[in-house]
C-alpha cells in the first residue's frame, strides 16, 4: 500500500466535498479496493470512507418499493431485501465479504462477474446518486465502466418489487464469482432477463429471451443459446460454454419462478 489520507464523513454532502480533491476515492466495504491497494495497483491520495453515513444505510420495503442504501452490506440485503435479491446477496463471497462489502461498492465497481448488475438490469432498478437518478439500462456501460461521474456517490438503489424473480448463479470454480449468472424477473414492464459473467461487454439484458418469455413464460420458451461472439473465454470456460450456460440458467430461473 502507498500512504493516503483518510476521512470518514457522516453525511453525503461532506463525502462529496471530500471527494472533490484530486485523486480522492470513495471507500465502501473495501472488499475490492483494499486488495487493489495492497498490491499497489492503485494510489489514491485520500480515501473517503462511506461507512459512517447514516443516510446511506438500511434496506426497507414500502408500498411495493424496495429501497436499499448505497452503503448497505450484502449481509443486510440478504437479511432484509425481497427474497430473490436476498438470496443473491446471501451467496456473495463468504461471511467476511458479506459483512463488509456494499451494494454501492459492487455497482460502482461493475465487475463483469459480479452478481448485482444482472439483478439491477432484470429488476429495472433505479441507481440513486448524490446528483441524480440513473436507470439500470443506462448505468452499466461495459466491464468496470458505469455512468458514474468522477466523485459521484451511489447513495441508494430503488426497485419495484417484482411479481416473481429468480437468480441462477453458476460459480467460477476458483473465485466463486459468477462464471455466468442469470436473473429473471417478472416486472410491471414485462419479463426482464439480466445476464452477468458471460459477456466481454459486461452485464447485459438477453432481449431475445425476454421477447420469447413475454409470449409464454415457460422454460420451454427460452430460446437456444445466444451467439458466443463477444462472450468471455478464459481458463474456466470458453465463450461457447458461457453462451450455453446463459440459456441453461435462464431456463432454470424461469422454472424456479414457475
Amino acid at each position, binding site marked *: 500500500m502507498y500512504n493516503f489520507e483518510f476521512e470518514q464523513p457522516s453525511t453525503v454532502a461532506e463525502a462529496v466535498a471530500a471527494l472533490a480533491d484530486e485523486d480522492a476515492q470513495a471507500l465502501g466495504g473495501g472488499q475490492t479496493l483494499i486488495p487493489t491497494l495492497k498490491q499497489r495497483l492503485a494510489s489514491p491520495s485520500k480515501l473517503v470512507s462511506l461507512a459512517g453515513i447514516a443516510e446511506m444505510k438500511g434496506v426497507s420495503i414500502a408500498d411495493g418499493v424496495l429501497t436499499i442504501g448505497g452503503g448497505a452490506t450484502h449481509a443486510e440485503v440478504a437479511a432484509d431485501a425481497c427474497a430473490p435479491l436476498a438470496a443473491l446477496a446471501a451467496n456473495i463471497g463468504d461471511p467476511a465479504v458479506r459483512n463488509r462489502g456494499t451494494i454501492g461498492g459492487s455497482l460502482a465497481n461493475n465487475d463483469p462477474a459480479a452478481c448485482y448488475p444482472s439483478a439491477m438490469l432484470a429488476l429495472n432498478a433505479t441507481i440513486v446518486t448524490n446528483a441524480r437518478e440513473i436507470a439500470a439500462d443506462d448505468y452499466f456501460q461495459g466491464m468496470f465502466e458505469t455512468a458514474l461521474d468522477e466523485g459521484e456517490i451511489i447513495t441508494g438503489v430503488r426497485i419495484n418489487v417484482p411479481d416473481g424473480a429468480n437468480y441462477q448463479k453458476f460459480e467460477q470454480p476458483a473465485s466463486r464469482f459468477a462464471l455466468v449468472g442469470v436473473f429473471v424477473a417478472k416486472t410491471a414492464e414485462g419479463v426482464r432477463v439480466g445476464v452477468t459473467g458471460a459477456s466481454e461487454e459486461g452485464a447485459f439484458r438477453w432481449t431475445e429471451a425476454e421477447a420469447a418469455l413475454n409470449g409464454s413464460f415457460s422454460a420451454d420458451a427460452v430460446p437456444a443459446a445466444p451467439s458466443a461472439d463477444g462472450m468471455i473465454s478464459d481458463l*474456466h*470456460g470458453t465463450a461457447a460454454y458461457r453462451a450455453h450456460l446463459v440459456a441453461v440458467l435462464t431456463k432454470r430461473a424461469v422454472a424456479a419462478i414457475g
Partner: protein
Amino acid sequence: MPKDSGIGASPKRREDVRFLTGNGNYTDDINVHGQAYVHFLRADVAHATINGLDTSAAEAMPGVVKIFTGDDFAEVGGIPCGWGVTDRHGEPQQEPKHPIIAHGKIRHVGEIVAAVVADSLEQARDAAEAIELDLSDLPAVVNMKSAAEDGATKVHDDLTSNVCYDWVFGNGEDDAMEAAFASAAHVTTLELVNNRLVANPMEPRVAIGEHNKSNDEYTLYTTSQNPHVIRLLMCAFVLGLPEHKVRVVAPDVGGGFGSKIFHYAEEAFCTHAAKACGRAVKWSSTRSEAFISDAHGRDHLTTIDLALDADNNFTALRTRTHANMGAYLSTFSTSVPTYLHGTLMAGNYKTPLIQVNVKSLFTNTVPVDAYRGAGRPEATYSIERVIDKAARELGVDPIALRRQNFVTEFPYETPVALTYDTGDYHGTMDKLEAAADISGFAARRAESEAKGKLRGLGVNCYIEACGIAPSNVVGMLGARAGLYDAATVRVNATGSISVFVGAHSHGQGHETAFPQVVAEMIGIDESMIDIVHGDTGRVPFGMGTYGSRSIAVCGSAMVRATEKIIAKAKKIAAHLLEASDADIELKDGVFTVAGTEKSIDWGSVTLTAYVPANYPLDELEPGLEETAFYDPANFTYPAGAYACEVEIDPETGKVTVERFAAADDFGNIINPMIVDGQVHGGIGQGIGQALLENCVYDEDGQLLSASYMDYAMPRADDVPFYAVDHSSQTPCTHNPLGVKGCGEAGAIGSPPAVVNAVIDALQSGGHDITHIDMPVSPSRVWAAMNG
C-alpha cells in the same frame, strides 16, 4: 475394545490446542530485536537478458539498509540439486547453476532480480520501485514438447539443450517390448496430462536470518520440513559456512505438502544478508509471491501403452513421459519423475515387462519438485487410468481385471527395481467393496438418473513406496543425501521424557503419535513424554519429514533409542533390586524381578540414574539418555483401493463427488484417528487435482492462475464425507513397529478414482468419451459431451 492410550489408541492431537487457540509459534510470529525487512524485486517477465540494473536512486531512498543484486552472489554457490540422475546413455543430468539472485539473465516470472533490505517493509517496497532495470526480452520456453525440439530457444545457454536427462528404466529392453506389443491380444493406449499444481500450504514461507557478532554464529528461522537438510545444503554448497556455526530452526510450520522440503534462495539470502547488513533480516512471503516462488508440483505429459494377452493378463507396460523441471533444478526435482515415479510403474500388478522413459525439460517456469506423493501419484494415475480404459475396451469389469492381475505372493520383485515385502491386495479390495457399498451402486445410479443426472463409479488401486531407503541403495541411484533418521530419548531425573527427533511435524500430529509409542514401550502415561523437533541446535541430525517417512524411519530410530533406555534402566533396576538384569521385566512402568514380588517403579530408577548414590558406577555411566540412527532396509509399501462415485449434471457438465471410500493397508497403526485425518486431507487434495486445481502459464510464460481468483483450491463443500477403512493390515516386515506410512496415500490414490468415475458416468449416458484431462472442470466435461 479400543485402547485409550499407547499404540492403537486415538487420543486427540495435543498440538491442536495451541493451533486452534491462536497460540502456535510460527516463523512469522518470531521477531528478532532490530530486524530489518527484505523485499524481493521479482521478475515480471519469463525470459530476458539483464543489460543493466541501476540501484543508485533506490539506495538513496528513506530507510534503505542495503540493496543486493546478482553481482553480490556471483561468488557463492548456486542452490544444489540433491539427486544426480544418469541418463540412458550413462551421461549425468544437465545441471545449470541456480543462483540466489538472477545474474545476467532472468529465467522465470518470480525469479529474484534484486533484494532491498530496509528498516520497514513498506520502505523496502518503495525503494524496489525505484530500481531501474534494463532488459531485453527473449522468447519464453513454456511448452515441454517444443522445449524438447532441436533448435528450440534454450533456457540455459551453457547447456546443450533443454533436456535435463532422457532416462530409461525397467526390465523391458526395446526388442522385448516390441515383441510383447506385437504379440499382444489387445493394446490400450492413453495420452494424459498430470496437471501442474501449486502446493498452497496455509502458511506462506518465511525466513529470518540472524548473525551474532560476538561468536560469528548464524541462526536461520525458516518454514521448513527438514531443518538439518537445509543447514547442510546451505552451508556446504551455497554459502560455504561451517555447519557448527549455523543453527536452523523450523518451529510450528503450517503445512508443507513437499513445498517446504527444498532449500530456497530466500533462506540463503536472509542468512547471508544478516551478516552483511549487521542486522537480522526478515522475509515473509505474500500469497502472490508464493504462487511464483514456491516450487510447483506434477506437470507430466505421458503416453502409456498396456499390452494384454487373450486372457486379459497384463504382459507389458510402456510409458513415455515429458516432465517439467521449470527453469532450475529444485532440491529433489530430478528424482521425482525418475526414482519416485518409474520405480512405481508396476503398481499392484504382476506385469512382467515394463519400460519407462522420462525426458525432463527446462522451461521458463517456476521450478517443479515434490508435491504430496511426488512421482507416485503420477505413476498411479497413468497405470490406473490405462487399466480402466482397457477394461472398458474389453468390456470386462474393472475390478475383476485388476484382481486378475494382482501380485499375490510376497516378497515380490518388480521389473522396476523394488521388492514389495508384504501386501494383501485382494483383502484390501474386499474391504473397499464393503466400505464403498459397491453392490448398492446400481440403485444409486437409478436414483441419479431419475433426477436427470449421470452417475459413475470409479475404482482404482495404488501402491506407494514410503520411507525412501536404504541410504546405500539410493546413493547408488544418485541420491546425494542419506535417508536415515535419528532420535535422542532423554529421560529426566523425575521420569519425564523428551524425545528429540529428526522428523519434523507440520500438521501430521507427531507430538501426539510419537509419545504413544514410547508410552507403550515403557508403560507410562503419554503426558510424561514430549517430542522436540525442528531445531538443529537441539535435535540430532535427521532428514526431516517427507515421503511419508516419519513413523517408519524416525519412529524406528525412536524405538531403537528407547530400547537402549530400557536396557540401561533394567540394569539400574537390577542393581537396586539386587537381581540380574536378565531377570528384570518392565510392565506398566514398574520393574519386577521375574517370578517375585520384588519391584521398583520407573521414577525411582530414573532418579537413581541422576542421583547415583546407590549405583554401579564402575560398570554403568550415570544418566539416562540414548540416541539411535536408523537406516531402513527397504522402502515400506502402503497399498490400497479407492472408490469414487460422481454425479454429473449433463446440462452444465458439473461433476460432484457424491461418495468416496478408501481402503488402505498401512501395516500397523499408531493412532487411527490421525491416520483417518491424513487420508481425509490427502483425498481432499486428490479431488482438488482431479476436479479443480490447475497451474497454467500462457505462451509468454506469465502465470495465469496466479491467485485464488483463478487457482481453484478444493473447499469443504467440494468433497463428501469419506468412508475410510484401514483394517486391512499386513505389517511391514523390516521395521520394528511394522508400520508403513500414511501421509500421501490419499493424494496418490484418489485422482484416478475420480476420473474413472467421470468416464463411467459419461459412458453410462451414451457418450463415447474415453478420457478427459484433469482438472475435469465443468467446461471441459461439457466440451467433451458436445465435441
